[in-house]
């Protein structure tokens, strides 16, 4: 009879379950800021399994980056307001933005007790730039003098050291660039420039499984693949940002919905991006344990300027017209439920060098003007607009809404062209095979306007997917890079941004992306920076 009984129960359970979902709702709970704090408390962080071994110069996606940025501390860092701060460096001096003198704070240690010296940096950079080691981030060293010797386009390297790097003494080294780069100091913040201990070179593969850094946290135990990776407070850490907690367990999820269910049950403590499906209701679920704020990433639509039709000069007007047909504010508030906000240029607010309205009037919603401009430019090629995007990310909502606006307000037929995977759309874009506009998204490497302009709009730049090329813009970028101080550089970059958008508009700026985050009842003092990451060392775990 046991079977029979359980069958009844199971049947009942199903009926109850179906009825209950109809009336299920979230409960609010306040943030108890007065709760006692456990300085050794450990919290967990939603993450995805890293795609590469945990070597700083071989990690270029968030899954691995979030752990590396805790295990390591580079020369410089940015605070929550995007202000450049010295970290492991005592000073980074330059007079011409081409020759740098870097002094280290003495006494910093790696997690295995080894002292961090100038060689820890120089050797690491030489190793990573070497083409033989095939590091994904090797091109970060391209500006350093002698890069071509260790990383020729073809064949084996001529040398294993870049001539631009010289160790002066244990706590000082110099960097010579092949040309001035006004943002080189900012760039030093990126993972690729982290130091490596001697143990790394003996067994890079083993190191990738168990990295040894110089950061506020050290790894504990081994990397449980697809499950979790634990880091704990490193007592010998010499930086200013000493952890106010005991450590972090990075938990790996393959679906963010699963992580969100865990967040609601306090099984994971911080989720930096709630699932797209929950954006509409996460504030109800979490109350003041949630935040939605802009970060250094944007979403645009790029045009194939290598295409015979789109490269005609008069089509700039068509692109600007299309831009004016899009009601960004309404889309951001309704279709996207506040997970993005309207952009007025290529640089998100809060980033160094940002000024509003780089777009001029061309990002303002004005259907009449839109139609007029499109007409002046001779209309959309083929009288139909296709937008290609990858459907494996959270893109469908905004692409549909944008297309809808173009159809309604500009009277141009618009269809979307979803590709199954990021890889598929990426290949079409980088091989320059598209004849229609496409999704173009950018997440900054460092918080400066140059990262949003030079990397995408300079002739032949790495992420210039549009094939955009403009002598005037190139000259401005070069002038900015060569300027002596960063404020001048930022101003010139803003001019370049205006010139790009108001003259040619190779891409339509659409949205600034938001960090849409939530945290559990176990933690407090959770803040997010422009890298879309929590200020880990400041998080406090309640007793």
């Amino acid at each position, binding site marked *: 009879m046991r*079977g*029979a009984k*359980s*069958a*009844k129960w*199971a*049947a009942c359970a*199903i009926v109850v*379950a*179906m009825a*209950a*979902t109809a009336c*299920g709702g979230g409960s609010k709970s306040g943030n108890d800021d007065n709760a006692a704090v456990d300085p050794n408390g450990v919290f967990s962080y939603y993450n995805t*399994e*890293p*795609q*590469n*071994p945990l070597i700083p110069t071989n990690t*270029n*996606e968030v899954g691995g980056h979030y752990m590396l940025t805790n295990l390591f501390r580079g020369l410089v860092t940015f605070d929550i307001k995007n202000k450049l701060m010295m970290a492991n460096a005592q000073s980074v001096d330059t007079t011409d933005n081409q020759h740098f003198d870097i002094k280290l704070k003495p006494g910093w240690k790696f997690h295995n007790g080894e002292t961090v010296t100038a060689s820890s940096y120089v050797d690491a950079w030489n190793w990573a730039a070497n*083409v*033989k080691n*095939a*590091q*994904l981030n*090797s*091109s970060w060293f391209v500006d350093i003098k002698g890069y071509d010797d260790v*990383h*020729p*386009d*073809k064949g084996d390297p001529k040398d294993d050291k870049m001539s631009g790097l010289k160790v002066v003494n244990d706590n000082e080294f110099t960097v010579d660039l092949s040309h001035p780069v006004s943002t080189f100091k900012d760039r030093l913040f990126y993972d690729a420039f982290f130091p490596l201990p001697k143990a790394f070179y003996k067994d890079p593969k083993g190191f*990738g499984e168990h990295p040894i850094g110089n950061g506020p946290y050290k790894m504990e135990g081994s990397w449980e*693949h*697809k*499950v979790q990776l634990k880091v704990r407070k490193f007592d010998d850490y010499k930086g200013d940002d000493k952890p106010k907690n005991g450590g972090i367990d990075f938990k790996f*999820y*393959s*679906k963010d*919905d*699963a*992580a969100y*269910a*865990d967040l*609601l*049950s306090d*099984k994971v403590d911080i989720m930096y991006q709630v699932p797209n499906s929950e954006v509409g209701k996460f504030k109800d679920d979490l109350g003041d344990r949630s935040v939605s704020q802009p970060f250094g990433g944007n979403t645009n639509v790029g045009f194939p300027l290598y295409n015979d039709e789109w490269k005609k000069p008069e089509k700039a007007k068509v692109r600007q017209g299309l831009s004016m047909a899009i009601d960004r504010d309404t889309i951001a508030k309704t279709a996207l439920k506040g997970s993005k906000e309207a952009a007025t240029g290529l640089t998100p607010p809060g980033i160094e060098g940002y000024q509003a309205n780089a777009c001029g009037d061309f990002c303002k919603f004005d259907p009449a003007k839109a139609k007029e401009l499109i007409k002046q430019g001779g209309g959309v090629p083929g009288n139909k607009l296709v937008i290609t995007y990858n459907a*494996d990310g959270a893109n469908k909502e905004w692409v549909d809404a944008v297309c809808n606006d173009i159809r309604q307000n500009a009277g141009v037929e618009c269809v979307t062209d979803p*590709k*199954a*995977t*990021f*890889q*598929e759309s*990426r*290949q079409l874009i*980088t091989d320059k095979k598209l004849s229609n506009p496409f999704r173009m998204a*950018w997440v900054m490497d460092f918080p400066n306007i140059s990262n949003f302009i030079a990397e995408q709009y300079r002739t032949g*730049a*790495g*992420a210039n997917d549009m094939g955009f090329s403009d002598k005037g813009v190139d000259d401005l970028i070069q002038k900015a890079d060569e300027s002596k101080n960063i404020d001048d550089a930022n101003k010139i970059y803003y001019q370049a941004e205006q010139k790009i958008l108001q003259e040619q508009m190779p891409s339509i700026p659409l949205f600034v992306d938001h960090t849409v985050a939530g945290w559990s009842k176990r933690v407090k003092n959770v803040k997010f920076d422009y890298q879309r990451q929590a200020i880990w060392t400041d998080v406090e775990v309640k007793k």
Partner: protein
Amino acid sequence: MGRFVARRLLQMIPVFIGTTLLIFLMVYSLPGDPVKALFGSKAADPATVARLRHEYGLDKPLLQQYWDYITGLFQGDFGQSFTGRPVADLMAEAFPVTIRLALFAFAIEVVFGIGLGVLTGLRRGKFLDQAVLIFTLIVVSIPVFVLGNMAQFLIGVKWKLVTPTVQDSTDLSQLILPAVVLALLSLAYVTRLTRTTVAENLRADYIRTAVAKGLPRRRVVGVHLMRNSLIPVVTFLGTDLGMLMGGAIITEGIFNVPGVGNTLYHAVITSEGPTVVGVVTVLVLVYLVSSLVVDLLYAVLDPRIRYA
């Protein structure tokens, strides 16, 4: 018997080569360049791409790649993933988790499926029979991701009876929910299948004879009825075990179980040839072996079936 098994084992060789080749070709023809995709939105540095291609053997002709893979396979080398880890290691992590989950689900399916099937078959038309029929109908008609998410939300998030996702896959109590969700669909099929054959065989002549002989009811049901009724059920269960191993992608996703389904899903998304082929090859072997075991079980259940 021995010759039959030998023949079946030999038949596995062409099936094995055929499937690996097919999967290999399919992964290769997926759109997108997996090496360039490693660079994300950044430009792929050509010199680095060339190095990586060479490292993974992607610069060789396709058939040579396949040949290298197969010869490696016979030496026990499953190749390496783009993360530089041996695929054998990936599988060694994922398979135990999935086997645990699949066997758990399988046990639930067998015990409750056959149990309910026999009970309802014996009490056709009664209340219990009706209730179970409705229950199985509901289960069969609700897609597994609805069932999974609903169970997770209610039992995990709302009532907090279990953790919403699996925190530790070696803890069987945490596997209960995913295992039940995974088992439910097949459980419904098994129940219905058993019920029908039991109800049918109940009217067979040999049962009437057995009852007329005055055999105790336990023996009539347990030996005469069950043994004959289980043949189609065993066929179903055999193939289902293979499906539970490989088809748990959705359930593993919902409950964040780091098993084979998850591994396979990631490998397909990132076009990681060696991982996909490796995992699928093992799954094909599981299928082949379980169907062989089913065929052998026939002979045990039905003495009339003989294998020469």
